[in-house]
């Protein structure tokens, strides 16, 4: 079976650091950036373990703020 590789693009200014994507990612890909905030004063997520992302879209689907865009390829 072909492995899926995914990538998540974070719209940093929309992110509010709520962590819902983080806990809903089955691959543990995402994390909040520590000690840094966007111009609204919120921490935001980034792909901490980018290699593990399968592009399943769970993170984007559960994000209330429409922060995440997901791409996927068969490897």
């Amino acid at each position, binding site marked *: 079976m072909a492995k899926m590789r995914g990538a998540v693009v974070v719209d940093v200014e929309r992110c509010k650091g709520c962590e819902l994507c983080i806990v809903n990612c089955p691959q543990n890909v995402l994390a909040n950036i520590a000690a840094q905030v966007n111009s609204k004063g919120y921490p935001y997520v980034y792909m901490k373990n980018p290699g593990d992302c399968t592009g399943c879209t769970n993170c*984007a689907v559960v994000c209330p703020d*429409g922060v995440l865009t*997901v791409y996927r*390829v068969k490897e």
Partner: protein
Amino acid sequence: MELKDIIKPENLVYKRTECLTDKVLSYCPGCGHGTAHRLVMETIEELGIQSETIGVASVGCSVLSYDFMDVDMTGAAHGRATAVATGIKRCNPEKYVFTYQGDGDLAAIGTAETIHACNRGENITIIFINNGIYGMTGGQMAPTTLLGMKSSTTPYGRESALMGNPIKITELVAQLPGTYFVTRQSVHTPANVRKAKKAIMKAFDNQKLKKGLSFVEIVSNCNSGWKMTPVTANKWMEDNMFPFYPLGDIKVDGELVKK
């Protein structure tokens, strides 16, 4: 493979619907309102009915939903969204009309309007966000607040003798002849989001088919009002809200779902 090789238009699998405006949502981090907004707008995009849709915002945290949803919308007075929607739909039967309401709005001050729009079977869609509290005004008790639950007007927990019982308005409207589809969903996990999306899609489909009223409750967190982080709020919701407000369809195709 590097990320930049993946991030190409042809590999896109998920992006924010174009039926949302670019404005940053005014909701607290992790609030379910945002997800619910997105699902409604995705549905409208997928059905290709943006130009035929008129939305009714209500008074609550989502009072500004008209700023985020890229369809023509009006802001109803607190509790009166279904009356406003009735006025719109009766005069514009060819349009898709939906309301987006909180539990205070729909099940407290708006009870009469809710019950009667449902009873008349107005051919509209109601999106009902039940977060068990009045978010916008600072976390006061809602009609849906659970017994024992703390809020700024029940700081020691809701007691039925003093402040009455939580109301299952969704089960109630399912009893009425005018409702055709009544369901309770949540948007706190990807699986639930996908289910909720299907329900909303069905609700708009029914409107196209002139089947009468569709009522989609979404049990949601108000982490601010509950004074929790979004993640613990969702957990608390699963443990406390869902037992009292069980997820699932309540009335489908005009028939109550047997339990």
